[in-house]
Structure formats: C-alpha cells, structure tokens
C-alpha cells in the first residue's frame, strides 16, 4: 500500500509558493487525509443505520448505546481501553508490512503463539525476581511472534510466496499448535474444563495503571505506535521501507537491501503481535489458553486499514474499535441484537474505508494542483 507516494509526488510537483498561500495548500493537503476517512466512517454508520431501520431497530438507540457501552462511564472507558491495548499491537503487525506493500493478515497466529511462548518461558522461572520473569516472558513472546511473521516475509521475498494467503494459513496452523501445546505438553493437569498452561500467579501479573482499571499493556502499545511512527517517518530505514513499498524496482536500483527490509519489518511486526499475546497472558488471562484466539489479530487488520497504516492514527482508531467491541454486550442486552451486529458494522466500515481510497486526489478542495489547472 503506497499511501505516502501520492503525497510525495504531489508535494514535489507543486509549484513552490511562499507565505500564506503555501500554508493554505499544506492545510488543504493534510486535511484530505483526515476528512476522507472520517467521512467514510460517517457514511458507513449511515448505511448501517439504514440496515437497522430495515430490521425495525432504532439507529439512534444503537448509536447512543454504543457510545454508552464504549465511552459513557469510567467503567466502560476502562473496558474499551483494555480491549484497545492488544489492538494497538496487532494493528502494527498489519501496518508495518503494509508500508512495504505487503498485506500480512495473520497476526492472530503470532499473538496466540507469543502468548504460549510467554507462558512457557515464565512458568519455570517463577520464584525469580519480577523483572526477570516478565522480561523473559516478553522476550519469548516477541521473539516467537517475530519468527512466525518473519518467516512469512522471508517466504515472500526469497520464494515469491503470496504473503496474504501464507499469513492466514500460518494463523490457522498457529492456533492449532497453540491448542496442541495447551492441551498436551504444557497443560496444567488441574485445568479440567478449560485446558490451560500453569498460571504465573497474581504476584507476577502485569499491574493496572494507577487510578484506572486498565493494565500497563495499553502504555506499551501506545509507546510502540509512537516508536513505529518515528521509525517509519523519521529514520533512514523507514524511508527505505517507504521507497520499496512504493516501487520495489526503484528501491533495488538504489541499492537498498529490499530482502533485509522485508524480513526485518515483518519480524518487527510479528514481534509486536507476539508481545500482544504475552501481555494478554501476563495481564489478563494469567495463563495461556484457547481464549487467546479472541480475534484481536483479525480486528487489528481493520484498525490498521482504518488508520491507513499510519502508526499514530492507530492509537485513536484502536480505542474507537475497542469501544465498539466493548459495547457489544450492552447492545445485545438492550436492543436484542445478536453479538454479530458489531461484526457487521466493522465489516461495513472496512468496505467503506477501502472504497474511499478511490476518492483521494479527486476533490478540488484538497488538491492545490487542481486549483492551478483551473486558473490557467
């Protein structure tokens, strides 16, 4: 996905202008990237409202309940933020490869295996100091995720295997592997109804942020997003990645090590997903079990696409999607809607936002190049 290239080209081809005019042009260009996605979300909600009206439900009730369930009280805000925390990391797992032009959608596999690896690393170390245990778990989780998704990048570059399909297949394999490990070699014999690994115990759990009912994983996710933004926008590596995402041939002619970039970025992406799994184990579940495959990897795809693969934009979008997810229960109880109502809304938003890709560069208001054309 070469989102940045049109901007770059436009900026380069636009005639240089100074002072007030230049400022207006810049604002116009920047606002396109905000107005179009926000507009798309509004259109998506409007279509969904029609869908609800057809079923005889009130869209206003839906929206107000969604707001109340997601952000209406401190309890629901905490709930939304807790759900947003893994989404921040799984969205990075999609967004980073996307900047290189790769559609990797198998974050779920890296997440569950990262969780299992974290539990496997943490349990034998119990009794050691807290930082040792948590550090080992984080390294194990991130490393497992990095290898899992890094393989996909390597297969893509060195064997030409399509990364979209291979990543999704690897997600299925990863979930099967997790089930096998959790029910087999890593199982705590005491876990009868719900097979799980041994628990790490309350003393080793990641605590909540003071004053909130949200664990520190949220902060980790936000820092990761900011760091990734810095990596992509402000470093040479990020610049190289954006070039090869825009045009692989050009990158190769420039002598960029495209293979190393692809493997590095996919591994980093997988590392974040694996870390998300580790945090789910260490902050929420307490052990690794089948609940790890809760779909955070798949919702992360939507978050990344809504954020147009911009790591900073991932932060608000993940919180928004976390809120939508959190309101599912309330919607089910109050409006007698199936829990899939949220899935439908998310799918619809996804389609509308992808469709809105076609609108970039079409509106005169946002494209100073078109102003010029009219004047002459």
């Amino acid at each position, binding site marked *: 996905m070469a989102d940045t290239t049109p901007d770059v080209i436009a900026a380069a081809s636009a005639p240089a202008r100074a002072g007030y005019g230049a400022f207006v042009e810049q604002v116009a260009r920047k606002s396109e990237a905000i107005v179009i996605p926000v507009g798309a979300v509004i259109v998506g909600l409007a279509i969904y409202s029609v869908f609800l009206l057809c079923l005889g439900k009130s869209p206003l009730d839906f929206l107000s309940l969604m707001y109340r369930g997601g952000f209406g009280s401190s309890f629901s805000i905490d709930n939304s933020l807790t759900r947003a925390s893994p989404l921040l990391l799984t969205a990075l797992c999609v967004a980073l490869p996307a900047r290189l032009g790769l559609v990797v959608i198998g974050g779920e596999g890296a997440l569950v295996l990262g969780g299992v690896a974290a539990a496997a690393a943490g349990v034998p170390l119990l009794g050691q100091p807290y930082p040792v245990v948590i550090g080992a778990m984080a390294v194990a989780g991130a490393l497992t995720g990095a290898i899992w998704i890094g393989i996909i990048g390597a297969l893509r570059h060195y064997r*030409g*295997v399509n990364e979209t399909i291979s990543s999704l*297949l690897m997600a299925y394999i990863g979930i099967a592997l997790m089930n096998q490990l959790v029910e087999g070699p890593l199982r705590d014999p005491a876990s009868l109804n719900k097979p799980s690994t041994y628990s790490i115990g309350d003393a080793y759990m990641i605590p909540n942020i003071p004053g909130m009912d949200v664990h520190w994983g949220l902060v980790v996710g936000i820092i990761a997003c900011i760091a990734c933004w810095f990596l992509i926008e402000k470093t040479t590596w990020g610049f190289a990645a954006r070039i090869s995402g825009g045009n692989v041939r050009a990158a190769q002619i420039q002598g960029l090590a495209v293979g190393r970039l692809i493997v590095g970025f996919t591994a980093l992406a997988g590392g974040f997903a694996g870390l998300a799994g580790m945090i789910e184990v260490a902050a929420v579940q307490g052990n690794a079990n089948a609940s790890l495959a809760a779909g955070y990897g798949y919702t992360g795809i939507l978050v990344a*696409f809504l954020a147009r693969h911009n790591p900073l934009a991932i932060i608000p979008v993940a919180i928004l999607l976390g809120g939508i997810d959190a309101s599912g229960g309330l919607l089910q109880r109050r409006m007698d809607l199936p829990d*899939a109502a949220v899935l439908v*809304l998310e*799918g619809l938003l996804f*389609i509308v936002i992808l469709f809105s*890709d076609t609108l970039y560069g079409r509106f005169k208001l946002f494209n100073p190049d078109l102003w010029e054309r009219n004047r002459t």
Partner: protein
Amino acid sequence: MSDPTAIGLWGVPLAILGGAIRVSTPFIFVSLGETITERSGRINLGLEGTLVFGAMIGYAIAVITGSPWLGVGAAAVAGSCFGLFHGWICKFPKVNDIAIGIALMQFGTGLAFFFGKPFIQPVAPHLPAIPLGWWSSLPQVRAALDVNALFLIGIVIAFALHWAFKNTKVGLIVRVVGDSSDAARAMGLNPNTVRLLATAVGGALAAIGGAYLSLYYPGAWTEQISSGQGLMAVALVIFARWNPLGCFLAALLFGGAGALGPALQSVGVTQGYYLFYAAPYVLTLIIMIATSSRTRSLTGAPGELSITK
C-alpha cells in the same frame, strides 16, 4: 457404524477415501468459482465470507421451505450478489481487490452470524446421498461411497469448465480479459463487465460449497462451520495452475488431508488431534512454497492477476 477395526487398518485408507469425497466437495466448488474469477484477472479473497453466508442462507431456506435444493439455489443467488458487489467495487480506480476481499470476508461472516442466530437450533433436511457402495457387503465401504449429488455435479462442472475455457467464445473472452486488459479493450470488450460477471459466478459457486457444508457434511449450521475452506481454495487454485481439472484433483488431495485426523481417530489414534487438524493448512503452505518462485512468473497465471505480479 460397526467397529472399524473389524477390517483392521484397511479402515484408515477407506475412511480417508470416504472423507476425501465428503470433505473435498466444498473445495471443488470454491476453487472452481475462484478459477473463473482469477482467470478474468481478479482475485476474490472474500469467498471465505461468501461460503459462510452461503452455508447460513442455504440452511435457513432449507429449514423454512423444507427443501434442501431450494437452499442450494438461495445460496447461489446470495453468493452471486456478494460476487457482484466485489466486482462492482473493484472497478473503481485505486481500490485494492485483495483488501476488499479481506473486508468482504469479515462482512460476509458477520452478516451470516447476524442472520444465522435463529437457525442454530432448527434441523434442516439434508441433501440426498447416492449409495454408490451398494455392491459391497462391508459397511465401511458403503459409508465411504455414499456420495452426495453435489460432488458429482462438481465433477461435471470441472470438466465443463475445462472444455469451455478452451473451446467456447465465453471461455476465450474470460481468458483474454484475464491476460491483458489492453488486448481485451482492443477487441471491444469491457474488462470490468467481464470481471463483474466472472466474480458473480465465482461467488455463486463458493456459496454452493458453503450450502454443502451446512446441508450435508457436517450437516448443521454453526458459527464454526467453515475452517478456512474459502481461503485455502484460493491457494489451491494457484497450486492447480488455474486449471479446472487440476482444481478437482487438488480438492480431493485436500479433502484427504482433512480426513486424515478423523480417520486415524476412528482406529484409536488420539494423539496429536490438533496437529492432524492442521494438516490441510500445512499441506497448502508446503505446496505454495514448492510451487512459487521468486524469479519466474507462474505458468498458466493470468497476466492481470495482482497476486502473481
């Protein structure tokens, strides 16, 4: 069913054969549908969602009307609607067909779960099976050769498509559009219209594959009905080199791999259930690694296909 160990380990290959026939049918339909779509130069990853929706609507209509064949028909109509939607939205510039496929996967699955809630409990009539094993006195052989009509229809479609791509005008049009939009335009064809229709037919076939799942094997509508068949079929099409007959054989192979776990379980091998469950995915991945290449493009690949570029 009597004790499978009565015929010793022969039960395993028999169960795999029977399983291959049962499990492969949705693969046959989805992969044939995807072949048509991809031959026209588009890729529809949303077939997974179409398949789940087809499973739901097929089951629902069968429950309401009492006729499983009406269910299959309804699934085909719904599937072609999904296909039309994908085909329509992808004709706009800058819209990425792979990403739209992922979105439709989520949307189709979501819609199926949304409307499918009331149909989890009721029991729908099943599609009839044709007992091709009547000549045998062994119950295992009879069970393995109870073949569903849709499997046979799938074989017919595979051969018909193979013939049509080579010998008919429509087949040629689809192939030209898939290989070069410019050549097609020069011939006075509208690539978008051809792709729209090809995606619609592909969606209809994928939804029939889904209806088979809910109406025959496993034979009930649940939210876990699909285990990624719609997606694996996309990989299977690449493996089959966009050849309908190859799709059929590859589908049988995948079906066999999927039947491995249950077959071993039936003779008492219970270790590693989840690993056998993952066998089709592993097989797909290995095949993709083995058949892809970094330098040369795949033989038989439609020139306009984004996935092989």
